[in-house]
């Protein structure tokens, strides 16, 4: 796993954290428009980054698994315990 993928993975983790935090706020403030805009913006950004990661290094989640070439990368790419994330 090279520096570039590590950097992208960190960006995704930070975005995922922001989305999770704002979701928790929306749990108790479901009508807060500003919070909803915040959620929509960062959730879109997170998905874009995850798509970018999937295109370059393979899918992080099944939602981003897609046919690339002949094999199903979700299955054939190294698993985390096989050094897939290091």
């Amino acid at each position: 796993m090279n520096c570039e993928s590590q950097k992208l993975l960190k960006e995704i983790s930070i975005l995922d954290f922001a989305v999770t935090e704002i979701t928790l706020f929306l749990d108790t403030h479901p009508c807060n428009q500003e919070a909803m805009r915040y959620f929509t913006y960062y959730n879109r950004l997170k998905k874009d980054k995850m798509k970018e990661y999937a295109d370059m290094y393979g899918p992080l989640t099944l939602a981003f698994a897609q046919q690339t070439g002949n094999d199903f990368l979700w299955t054939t790419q190294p698993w985390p315990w096989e050094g897939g994330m290091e």
Partner: protein
Amino acid sequence: MKEFFSEYQLLNQLPLGMAYVPLQEFTHLYENLEEAFCKGTLFKDLYKPFSGRRCVR
């Protein structure tokens, strides 16, 4: 002593024996998301690191 209780005027309409948490406002968010990530919260008002001794304002 009287003045001390005046600010609790509203509270005495609420049932006893219950805990009340003030409603959080959507304010004071960390602009830098990496900072929020390291501090474990998006909201500055919720950043309360343990200081290893009695709470000090």
